[in-house]
C-alpha cells in the first residue's frame, strides 16, 4: 500500500467535493438575487440583498430567518413590510404627536415614511450599530432632515441616560430574529413609560411566527405596565404590535379608525391605515394571561421561546 498516493487521492477528492458543495450552495441560495453589501459589523453580518424581479431591496442580518427591512426601489417611501404599516397606527392613537422616538433604525422604512408624510414631527432614532446607519444612508435612501436626529447607542442605555421625553415611542430593535433580552423586561418597559409625555404611548414590534410562552410573557409585561394595551396581529406575517398607552380612557375601534382617516387625509400612504386599524384592532387590557411578567432578574427568554404557551385564559385580568 502506498500511503502517499492514498493520502493525495483523498486530499484531492476532498478539495473537489468541497468546491462542488460551495458552488451548489451559491447556486441554491442566491438564485434571482444580487448581493449589494455583505460585511461583518461589530454586531452582525449585515447584508443588502436585491430581488430584481420584485424590485425589492432587503436588509438581512446574519443568516437569520426573515428580513430586517424591505424597500420597493421604485417607491422607497412605501411601507413594504406589513408590520411597519401596523406600527403607524400609533400616530393615530395619540391625539397630537409631536415628539417620536424610534428604537432600531434597520433599513429606515419608518423614518422615510415619517419624513415624507409628517415632516413636522420631531423624530429621534436610536440605533446600536454605526454600520447599520451607514448602510441605511448608502443603500436605503435614508436622508438627513431638520427634524431627524440619530443617536448611536443601545436603546435601553439611551432611555436611561437621557431625560428627553416623547409622545410616541416605537420599539423595533431586533438582533436578527429576536429582541435582545434586556429590551423585554418589566424594568425596561417601565423605563420606556417614564420617558413618555402625558397621554403618550409605545408601540412594540414582536415577531413570533410560532407563538410561544415568551410571546405571552411579553404581552403580560406590557399589560402589567400600561393602563391601556392593545394587540394588533399583522396578517400572516408572524408580526404582532403591542400598544401600551397612558390614556385614562380606552380607545374604541371606531374612534381610532376615524383618527386614522383624518391623519391620512390628503396624503398618499399607499395603504389604508383606517381599514388596517378596523381589521387588526384588539384590546389586550381585559385579557387574562397565564404568565408572569419578565424581569431583569428572571427573563429566561431563550427557554420560553421553545415552550408551548397556555395562551389567554377565561376570567378577569390580573
Amino acid at each position, binding site marked *: 500500500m502506498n500511503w502517499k498516493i492514498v493520502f493525495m487521492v483523498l486530499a484531492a477528492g476532498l478539495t473537489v467535493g468541497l468546491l462542488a458543495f460551495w458552488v451548489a450552495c451559491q447556486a441554491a441560495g442566491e438564485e434571482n438575487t444580487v448581493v449589494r453589501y455583505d460585511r461583518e459589523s461589530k*454586531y452582525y453580518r449585515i447584508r443588502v440583498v436585491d430581488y430584481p424581479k420584485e424590485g425589492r431591496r432587503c436588509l438581512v442580518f446574519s443568516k437569520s430567518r426573515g428580513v430586517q427591512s424591505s424597500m420597493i426601489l421604485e417607491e422607497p417611501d412605501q411601507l413594504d413590510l406589513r408590520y411597519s404599516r401596523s406600527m403607524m397606527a400609533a400616530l393615530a392613537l395619540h391625539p397630537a404627536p409631536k415628539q417620536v422616538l424610534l428604537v432600531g433604525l434597520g433599513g429606515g422604512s419608518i423614518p422615510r415614511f415619517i419624513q415624507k408624510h409628517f415632516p413636522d414631527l420631531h423624530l429621534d432614532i436610536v440605533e446600536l450599530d454605526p454600520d447599520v446607519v451607514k448602510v441605511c444612508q448608502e443603500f436605503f435612501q435614508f436622508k*438627513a432632515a431638520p427634524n431627524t436626529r440619530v443617536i*448611536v447607542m443601545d436603546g435601553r442605555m439611551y432611555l436611561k441616560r437621557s431625560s*428627553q421625553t416623547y409622545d410616541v415611542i416605537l420599539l423595533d430593535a431586533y438582533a436578527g430574529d429576536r429582541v435582545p*433580552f434586556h429590551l423585554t423586561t418589566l424594568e*425596561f418597559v417601565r423605563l420606556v413609560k417614564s420617558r413618555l409625555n402625558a397621554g403618550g404611548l409605545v408601540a412594540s414590534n414582536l415577531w413570533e411566527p410560532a407563538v410561544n410562552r415568551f410571546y405571552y410573557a411579553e404581552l403580560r409585561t406590557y399589560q402589567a405596565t400600561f393602563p391601556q394595551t392593545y394587540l394588533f396581529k399583522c396578517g400572516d406575517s408572524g408580526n404582532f404590535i403591542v400598544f401600551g398607552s397612558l390614556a385614562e380612557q380606552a380607545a374604541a375601534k371606531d374612534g381610532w379608525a376615524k383618527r386614522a382617516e383624518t391623519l391620512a387625509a390628503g396624503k398618499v400612504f399607499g395603504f389604508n391605515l383606517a381599514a388596517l386599524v378596523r381589521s387588526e384592532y384588539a384590546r389586550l387590557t381585559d385579557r387574562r394571561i397565564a404568565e408572569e411578567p419578565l424581569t431583569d*432578574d428572571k427573563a429566561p427568554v431563550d427557554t420560553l421561546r421553545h415552550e408551548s404557551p397556555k395562551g389567554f385564559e377565561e376570567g378577569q385580568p390580573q
Partner: protein
Amino acid sequence: MTMRLGILATIFISGAAVMSLEMASFRQFSSYFGDDISIWGSLISVFLGGLAIGAMAGGLLADRRPALWKLGAILTVGGVLVLAMPFYSETVLDWASGKGNDLPKDWGTDSQDASGLIIYSPPSKHWQALGTGALLFGLPALLLGMASPYAARLYVRELKHVGGGVGLVYGISTLGSIVGTLGTSFYLVAWMGTRWILWSNAIGLVLLGAALAAAHGLRRGKQAAA
C-alpha cells in the same frame, strides 16, 4: 484517600462557581450596559484577572503551613461576598452606567455628518463596565482563584508526583467550570433568575467552607487519638 477525594470535590465545586458567577454577571450587566461584546469581554477579563492574581496569592499562601481549614476559610469569605452582592450590585450598576441627565438634551446641529444627518455617538461605557465588573466580581474571582494552587498543595504529597497532582486538580477544576457554565445557561437562568443564581453559589461555597473546616477538625481529632 477520603481527604484527597474531598479536595477534588472542593475544586470541582469552586470551578463550577467561577463560571456560574460569570454567566450571572453577563445577565446582570446587559441590563445596564447593553448586550454588547465589549461588555462580555470586560467581564471575562475581570474573572481572568481575579483568577490570575488569586492563583499567585493562593500559591504563596499554600507554602506557609497549608491546612484544610484555611482553604475552607478562603471559600467561605468568597461565598459571603457573593451572598451580599445582590444587596448593593443594582445601586452600583445604576450609578456606574449613567443616569438621568447624563446625555445632553438639546444636541443637534453641532454634530452632523458629511451628508448633513444629525448624528450623535456618545462614547462607549465599556471602561465603566470593566471597572464596575472589577469592583463587584474581582474579589470573589480572586478568592476562588486562590483555591486551585492551594488545593494542589494539599493534594500533592510527594515531590515526584507534583506534575500529575497539579494537572489533576486543575483538570477537575476546569471540568467543574464546564458544569457551571452549562448548568447555569441551560437551566439555572430559567429556573431561578440571576439573584438566586448568585445566592445558590454563595450558599454552596459557605457550606463547602464549613465542610472543609469540619474535616480539618475530624482529622486533627484522629491524629490526636492515634
